[in-house]
């Protein structure tokens, strides 16, 4: 997805689960539950709270931006070169909950996100993109 106004890109993943939003909300906001599906953390559902997620590829720093119980949860998701926002939007359905996750704020030409922290990658990928552009 591309937002032309700000020239950033988003990743959207959504799924319907057969559990009510209240239960989904607990899984999204209670640290011991978050740990089960995402990563060990010191999350608190308070706007302005900062927490870290230590993935094996490096730490991710987060700050809570928005908490509307059972409706919207949003936090920053970044490292020294990535600044994105992850927003969870659970919506009640007849079956349970439609859960939508959007990670927004990727700048164009940022494939180096993966292991970009490693020296040499950004330059290499830029060079590569130029090569690929010429090939097409």
């Amino acid at each position, binding site marked *: 997805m591309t937002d032309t106004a700000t020239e950033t890109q988003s990743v959207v993943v959504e799924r319907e*689960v057969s559990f009510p939003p209240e239960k*989904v909300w607990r899984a999204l906001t209670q640290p011991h539950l978050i740990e*089960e*599906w995402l990563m060990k953390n010191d999350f608190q559902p308070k706007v302005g709270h900062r927490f870290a997620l230590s993935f094996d590829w490096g730490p991710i720093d987060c700050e809570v931006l928005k908490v509307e119980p059972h409706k919207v949860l949003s936090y920053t998701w970044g490292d020294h070169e990535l600044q994105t926002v992850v927003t969870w939007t659970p919506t009640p359905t007849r079956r349970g909950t439609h859960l939508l*996750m959007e*990670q927004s704020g990727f700048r164009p030409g940022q494939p180096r996100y*993966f292991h970009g922290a490693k020296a040499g990658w950004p330059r290499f990928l830029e060079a590569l*993109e130029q*090569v*690929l552009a010429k090939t097409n």
Partner: protein
Amino acid sequence: MPQPHDALFRTLADPTRRAIFEQLCREGDQTVAAITARAGISQPGVSKHLRLLKQAGLVGDRHEGRQTHYSARLDALGPLIDWTHQMASFWERRFDDLEDLLKRMDQ
């Protein structure tokens, strides 16, 4: 993202291999002799790097008489360049784990 195509990254992490790969991207098919002339290392060294590049799917070879021509396989880079796909699959896996957790949680 996590555990993405480790062989691909490991292979391209080496500057000499990266240079060889870039040369093949820029200039098309090359023989070992032609690559060696530019690489600044011995022919056995180049052959070793080519073998690793080939194992990672980054390089293909074609035999022509007694010569072997090497070429870059750009499609092997797809996973590396398509970060949106990588991010989406990271979150898909998190959704799987989240759904498993919901099934295990008390009501």
